[in-house]
């Protein structure tokens, strides 16, 4: 009797234990379903490898990954900023990957020096100004935003947002703590209103006359320009992009990217997926659908991106953003940046 029970137990456990089917790959993605699923479906069509997907907020997915540990089913972690990828690396849940395809395609500053994570698409955080109220020769750098001439004229979202945290992290790297603190204090004094809403809301507010400058990520503006909603198109038409720090280090950029997990049971498939995501087709898709800049050279940009023109990007290694993030948050707290 005992033997039968033991046997039954073992069989039952064997049945529910996750089978290592080679033709699938499990993805934890902080990129929203609408902005990743179409690509994953195409990957499945081309390779026959099934992709299982959970989307969520980066921090929470990272927590899930760390707590699941060596038994985690996830093979690939996708996030929308480099800071989180760096955090995943330091938490020990990623593993290095060395692939000539990836190394040849992705510029050095957009991937981890040791191959723990790879950038897949680039976005810049830029200053936009209301045409007719501001001329582009009035300011040139992020640093100028703290200048007293802009008192009550700037719209920017809250300091709880990772894109602002990364921007401040990059300023910390460039100018040091003291100067950045002074900058944040000045910035808070120049805000036209308490920070609220998302990036698109800042552009809308600028168009409605609340402020003359708005700090936004490029793809949000691109989405507004190409929106089905007439009001968004109208608002976006009232502002123009000013590429910051072109004489110096370049505009602050960040990447969406991915890393193969330490626990990956489908390592080969995960690497194939990574390589697929930097293929010419996929890279063109990012540009076309979400107005992000491809990491791959020679991929055609969308018309909107072409109109904005070439720009110089800050080539700071993006790991630094993750390292500076806690200090950036504290600094903004001290400045009273809501």
């Amino acid at each position, binding site marked *: 009797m005992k033997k039968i029970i033991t046997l039954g137990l*073992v069989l039952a*456990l*064997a049945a*529910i*234990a*996750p089978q290592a089917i080679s033709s699938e790959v*499990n993805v934890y993605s902080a990129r*929203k*379903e*609408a*902005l990743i699923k179409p690509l994953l479906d195409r990957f499945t069509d081309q390779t026959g490898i099934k992709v*299982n*997907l*959970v*989307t*969520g*907020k980066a*921090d*929470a*997915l990272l*927590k*899930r990954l760390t*707590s*699941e*540990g*060596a*038994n*985690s*089913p996830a093979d690939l972690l996708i996030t929308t900023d480099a800071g989180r990828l760096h*955090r995943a690396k330091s938490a020990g849940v990623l593993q290095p990957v060395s692939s000539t395809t990836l190394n040849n395609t992705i510029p050095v500053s957009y991937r981890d020096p040791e191959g723990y994570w790879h950038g897949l698409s680039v976005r810049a955080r830029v200053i936009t100004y209301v045409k007719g109220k501001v001329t582009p020769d009035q300011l040139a750098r992020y640093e100028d935003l703290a200048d007293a001439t802009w008192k009550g004229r700037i719209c920017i*979202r*809250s300091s*709880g947002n*990772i894109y602002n*945290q990364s921007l401040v992290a990059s300023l910390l790297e460039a100018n040091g703590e003291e100067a950045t603190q002074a900058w944040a204090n000045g910035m808070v004094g120049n805000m036209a209103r308490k*920070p*609220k*809403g*998302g*990036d*698109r*809301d800042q552009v*809308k*507010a600028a*168009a*409605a*006359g*609340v402020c003359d400058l708005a700090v936004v990520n490029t793809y949000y503006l691109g989405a507004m320009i190409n929106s*089905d*909603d007439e*009001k968004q198109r109208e*608002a976006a038409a009232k502002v123009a992009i000013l590429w910051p720090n072109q004489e110096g280090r370049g505009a602050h950029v960040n990447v969406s990217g991915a890393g193969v997990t330490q626990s990956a049971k489908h390592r080969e498939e995960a690497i194939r997926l990574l390589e697929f995501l930097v293929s010419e087709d996929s890279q063109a898709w990012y540009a076309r659908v979400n107005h992000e800049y491809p990491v791959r050279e020679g991929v055609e940009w969308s018309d909107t991106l072409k109109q904005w023109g070439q720009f110089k990007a800050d080539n700071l290694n993006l790991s630094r953003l993750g390292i500076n*993030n*806690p200090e950036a*948050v*504290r600094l903004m*707290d*001290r400045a*009273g940046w*809501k």
Partner: protein
Amino acid sequence: MPGRNQRITAALLPWRVSIVTTTLLLALPVLVVVSYGLLPAGEVWRHLADTVLADYVSNSLLLMLEVATGTLLIGVSTAWLTTMCRFPGRALFEWALLLPMAMPAYIIAYTYTGMFDVAGPVQSALREWLDLSYGDYWFPEIRSLGGAGIMLSLTLYPYVYLLSRAAFLEQSVCVLEVSRTLGNGPWQTFFRVALPLARPAVVAGLSLALMETLADYGTVQYFGIGTFTTGIFRTWFGMDDSAAAAQLSTTLLLFVFTLVLLERWSRRRMRYHHSSQRHQSLPGFVLRGHQKMGAILICSGALFFGFLLPAGQLLFWAIETRNMIDSSFLQLTLNTVGLAAGTALLALLLALLMGYGKRLIPERLTSASVRIAGMGYAVPGTVIAVGVMLPLAWIDNSLDSLMREHFGISTGLLLSGTLIALVFAYLVRFLAVSLQTVEAGLGKIRQTIDESARSLGARPGEVLTRIHLPMLKGSLLTALLLVFVDVMKELPATLVLRPFNFNTLAVRAFELASDERLMDSSSAALAIVLAGIIPVILLSRSIRHSRAQHDLST
């Protein structure tokens, strides 16, 4: 005599054991988080205290004050009007006033902002007509502390409405009539008799609304208001300090605990049972003239701003973006409704166990257990999710290494990343809802009924199934519905804990809305509302029915 006492104790042992076990299980996630707080948090606390802590505290308190005022004013007044007064449209308002409950607070916040923000159609039209520009005129700012209070009040007043209405419905006509014959007018009867009698129910509804307020993240985050919840997220994820974040969570919990205790203490030894049978239909004050207009205005105002306006806007957007409704929609709806229904049922069973157990064994241990099991409601969903993830992953991984060692097979993760983990998190978070409702219902049944039944030989379980359950039908349905709707709207825990390839309507709506694609998210948001309406109507009918049946039976 000692023999008899021992027998009673023995009969109650299973109840005691199951209550304590359930509590421990449900308290585990919160305890895990609290235990993180025991780690030294370093200088982060100093930093918080120097900079933002005062803001978190004052904003959270003010927000609670606003929501308390808002939900009490709307909830109690509409409940009284639809229960005790007669005016045109009453039958419609009776159920329609529950509709805002189906609306997630962050969705209503997005919608109102879309309409009334500086760049929205209302202000744009104003500027165009009057040829003004921004700054020339005053317009209330939606995205402010006051605005957040209004958004939360509009979606949370149904808790107060529902529970107060149930209490008013069950009130004895005789008591009210006695009050009138003693010279109290209708207003005095309301304030001096009906309202005090309904106090446990009103307070139960209010505390649900307030706990939901404290746990809200979506609305305050979108409005840029620093509260405890946003502070916890910032500290945990932005500053990467889980100890300080856990200590913030613990502070929040202590605060909730104090509030609960204060309320209990202020009630002390008061009891709120029926003093007579409710064998007569309610009086039904017929309203005329100004009173009639006033009643219609109050009820339709709540309905309009809490539901019709935002739902209308969502519908308008959904039609404009109808291509967003694709084949996956049916699956999303099935997932959502299935999860919500299953969780609601489980939560009801647990609530009955806890609520009745506490009545059966009125000891400190059981009543503390019941309080602790309900604490999860004030904790933000993500924090609970983390608290669920850690112990489950630990169990999975320990079992895995055990099986590897002894049988050479790997079991992998058996609980983590499954629906079991998700439902567990829902129960931790939402048990308070069904518990409050069941307790409020049980509180109105006199203890002497139990005693009579027991003295006639009924065992504790029989008293529950044969006496309490039939009497509690309204409360039980209320408990089911509240959890159902709450689970449908739940977002943060669902996001983190759900299995591969499994989405719900709330996830779909949130993903699009948080990508600032508000219009595209409207169809999913509307589907949540629609799926919530059906149980709302069912519930409302059965509450009314329960009273009618009572009236008929005599």
